[in-house]
Structure formats: structure tokens, C-alpha cells
């Protein structure tokens, strides 16, 4: 006996195919939407900013006059910031991930810690700004320095790095660890020679994405009171500095129309920095995965 009757299947076929097509176009539209918005944004930034984007823009300090304004202090300041955030956040982030995945026994406490780390990733960045202001700027008297801002940004992206590293570490097959332990390797040797090399592509992907966030983040810097008009370069970790998003924010809120174009040029510089960072991540990732 047949449950599927040919004529009934045929009758419903047309509407099923239409539904299939409609939904396909909706999903395609959803994909294109973000791309279109990005393209419009890029177009506006390039059309507004390209006139100001030249060598002088990169080598001048900011100025009251739009034609003289440059991004040197902010660009170098952001690189200093990155030089603090990258090692601090990767060291502690990967360290915490290794502890949670390789050493910690599953208990209520570790589950609690785990839950909190995931929640921390969702805390608004301005809260981290307040934390940094209280602890680093005031309590530890670091002032509005590269170090204070770097530590604050590190705290901000730490949860993201921990979670990404944990996932990368968890993806390393158990077999490989067993093989290593089976030959008398210690936990540390197994981690450093087997687990981390296999996990590094994943860790780097997560890490660089988090660092990109740190470079573009503005709110914590505003709370820390990072100045914008600075006519010198940082001389050390305790120097005052300014950063790209602060500089862009400052230009964008000025009344003269020309400064909007300067801000657009600043955004282009920021975008270029981010693209370079992501390319470096991809290159490192490919290099590491080729070894295996």
C-alpha cells in the first residue's frame, strides 16, 4: 500500500518549490545586506578622506587647521598601545586557557569560573574603562599612560582570548596527548610540544580579532581621560599618548566641515592598520599549519 499518492505530491510540488526559492533569496539578501552597508561606508570614507590622506597626514601632529592636521601622534600611540596589549593579553589569555583546559579538574568552582569568563566577554567596554581608571590610573598611579591604557584594554579582550584559546586547545585530539604522556612526557612538555603547536592557528585567529577590537575601542580611553591634542610621541610606557579612535572621535566632533574629511582620512588609516593586522594573522597561521 502506498502512502504517497503521485497526484497529491504533484499538487503540492509548485508551492514547495516557490517557498524554497523565496527563502533562498531571503538568505542571500541577509548576506548581502552587511556587505552593502560596508561598501557604502567604505565608499563614503574614501570619497571624503582621500584628499587628506597623504604623507603629511601621517607625519604631522594634530592641528587647529584641517589642512595641517596629521595623525602621527595617534598612529604611533596606537602602535605603543598594541605593543602592550598584545603580549599581556596573549600571555595571560593563553595561560588561563591552558590552565582551564589542561590542569583544572572539573569542579563546581571551575564551572563557575568558566561561566564568569564567558559573561565577562559581554560586559560593556565602558565598564572596563572605569575599572582601569580606578585601578591603573588612580590606585597604581600609572596616570594616563600607555601602560594604564594597555592594561585596561588587555582586561577588556582577555575573556575573548581565553574562550578562543580554550576552543583551539580543546580541538587538539586526545590521542595526541595520550601518545605524548605514554612516552613519559610531563604535562608541560606535552602542552608545549604537542598541544600548543596544534592549537596555535586557532589561538592566533581569536587573538588577532581581539587585538583588532582593542585597537578600535574608544569608550575605555575616553573614561581613562586619554588626551587628544598631543604634540609629542610617547617616550616610554609611562608617557601620555593618544590613540587612533580618540583622534578620530575628536576630529569628528569639531564644528568645521573640513574636519569631517580629516576624520574620514583617520578612519582610513585605522582600517589599513586593521587590514595589516589581519593579514599578519593569516600569514602566521598559514606558516604554522604548513609545518604539519
Amino acid at each position, binding site marked *: 500500500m502506498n502512502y504517497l499518492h503521485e497526484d497529491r505530491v504533484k499538487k503540492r510540488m509548485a508551492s514547495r518549490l516557490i517557498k524554497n526559492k523565496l527563502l533562498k533569496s531571503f538568505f542571500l539578501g541577509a548576506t548581502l545586506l552587511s556587505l552593502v552597508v560596508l561598501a557604502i561606508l567604505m565608499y563614503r570614507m574614501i570619497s571624503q578622506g582621500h584628499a587628506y590622506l597623504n604623507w603629511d597626514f601621517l607625519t604631522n601632529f594634530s592641528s587647529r587647521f584641517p589642512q595641517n592636521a596629521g595623525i602621527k601622534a595617534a598612529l604611533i600611540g596606537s602602535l605603543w598601545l598594541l605593543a602592550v596589549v598584545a603580549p599581556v593579553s596573549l600571555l595571560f589569555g593563553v595561560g588561563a586557557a591552558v590552565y582551564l583546559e589542561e590542569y583544572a*579538574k*572539573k569542579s563546581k568552582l571551575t564551572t563557575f569560573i568558566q561561566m564568569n569568563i564567558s559573561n565577562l566577554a559581554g560586559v560593556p567596554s565602558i565598564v572596563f574603562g572605569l575599572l582601569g581608571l580606578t585601578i591603573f590610573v588612580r590606585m597604581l598611579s600609572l596616570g594616563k599612560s600607555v601602560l594604564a591604557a594597555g592594561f585596561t584594554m588587555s582586561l577588556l579582550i582577555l575573556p575573548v582570548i581565553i574562550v578562543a584559546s580554550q576552543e583551539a586547545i580543546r580541538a587538539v*585530539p586526545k*590521542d*595526541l596527548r*595520550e*601518545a*605524548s*604522556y*605514554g*612516552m*613519559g*612526557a*610531563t604535562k608541560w*612538555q606535552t602542552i608545549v*610540544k*604537542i598541544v600548543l603547536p*596544534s592549537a596555535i592557528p586557532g589561538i592566533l585567529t581569536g587573538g588577532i580579532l581581539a587585538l583588532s577590537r582593542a585597537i578600535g575601542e574608544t569608550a575605555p580611553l575616553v573614561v581613562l581621560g586619554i588626551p587628544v591634542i598631543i604634540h609629542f610621541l610617547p617616550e616610554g610606557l609611562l608617557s601620555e599618548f593618544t590613540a587612533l579612535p580618540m583622534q578620530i572621535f575628536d576630529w569628528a566632533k569639531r564644528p568645521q566641515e573640513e574636519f569631517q574629511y580629516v576624520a574620514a582620512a583617520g578612519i582610513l588609516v585605522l582600517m589599513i592598520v586593521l587590514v595589516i593586522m589581519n593579514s599578519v594573522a593569516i600569514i602566521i597561521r598559514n606558516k604554522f599549519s604548513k*609545518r*604539519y
Partner: protein
Amino acid sequence: MMVNNPINNKFSQEDEQPNLKIVSNEAKKTVYQTQNLDLWYGDTHALKGIQLDINENEVTAIIGPSGCGKSTYLKTLNRMVELVPSVRTTGEILYRERNILDKEYAVEELRTKVGMVFQKPNPFPKSIYDNIAYGPRIHGIKNRRILDEIVEKSLRGAAIWDEVKDRLHENAYGLSGGQQQRICIARCLAIEPDVILMDEPTSALDPISTLKVEELVQELKKNYSIIIVTHNMQQAARISDKTAFFLNGEVIEYAATDKIFSNPSDKRTEDYVSGRFG
């Protein structure tokens, strides 16, 4: 052809040295003495009062149906079982007269003496050379010349040198499953162990690769004591000197392989080896 009939192989070996075997049995030293070993995973009583002595330079097979505790017992012999967080043991396992279950006994030291080959070939995602050199390196050998020597010796020991000598620096993942398993055996030999534990080493391999590994085991027992867990009873019959039959966490019978397969004392052993259950 390289594919010899395994049964002929076994007979021919016995023909060559029938007396020697009996004599050596008398003189054989034990490597492992297990006394009243009980093991729990959480509340599950996985091993019950295990008593088992394992001889030097013999192949000891452990057979039994799934879930009978044979792999658990094997992993207790190098304390790999401790990777399971909820595991608890009582009793003693003496390895060369020292209790390995004593927390004072460093597992790293034990596992350097007792190598392990796993069910699924698990080479590292590194070159063949680096796979073999891994063990010696973690134990502190850095000299390139010594490492070269160990790599060659180990690969020859695992009968795979000729197949890989021209591609030592290629990734071990490019090899076939059977070759990978012999790389894993070579990697195990590189730490110069005393005992080799094998946890169903051929269950993921095709018949020809299986045969190669079995021949290798026969060769290796001259220098090493081998304990092999297997699902395959013919394999146990072909390659082992002694066989232990496990059932529900207990040793039902432990005797010379010939006896287990031809004239077992226990009804359950007989039922199992004749294929009536399992």
C-alpha cells in the same frame, strides 16, 4: 611473498625450539605482579581482585568481551588510566618489584620503561623523523647524530625503515594506516622501553597490515615483554605465549595460550573462545 601464513609461522617456530621454550619458561622472570587489584570509575567497579603475573620476553594476550576491563587493566600498567578523573584503585602492581600504584612512583619514569601503542594509530602531526625523535628529545637527548641513530634503529626495529627512509622529513600523516601504526611502534621503541603495552593495535588496520604488525610482535618479544589486548581471538592464538581471559572485571582464566584455546578449565572461557558469546 611477504605474506606468510601465520599458522605455519607459529608451527615453524615451535618446531625450531620446542625444548627451549619449556626450559625458558622455568627460568623466566616476571616483570609485572598484580596483587588484589581493584579499580573503580566513580561507582563502577571495573576491575575486581585481579591477580596476574606477567613474564619477561613473552607475549601476554588479554582477551574478553567489550567492557570486561581488559583495556582498563592495560592502562593501569602504565597508569594512563589516571587520565580519567574519577578513577580509584586499591591493591598493588609490582613492576620489577616496585609498586607502581604508589604515588611516589613518578608516572613519567614508569612510562619511559613501559611504552604504549594505541588502538588508533596516533602519530603526531609532525615529520616521521620528529615523531620518532619525540621520546628521546623529551628525555633530554639533543645531539643530532645520536637522534639520527635512534631514529634509524627504531624504524628498523619496527620493520618500516625501508619504506620510509627516503621520506623521513615528510609528515607522518601522509602514510597509510598500517604504516602509521608501525611508526607508532617505532616511536615507542625509541624510548628504549622494557615492556610494550598494545591496546588492540590492529583493530583499525587491514588484514595485510595486521599481519605485518603480528610478525613484528613476534620479532619484538626477543627483546621486550609485550602485553597485548585484543578483540581478535585468532590473533591471540597466533601471537601470544600466555592468555588471560577477562570477564566483567575479573580474570576468569590465565594460562598458556595453547591451553586456553584447546583445553580451557573454565566453562566460560570455553564458551568465549569457541565463539558462543562475546
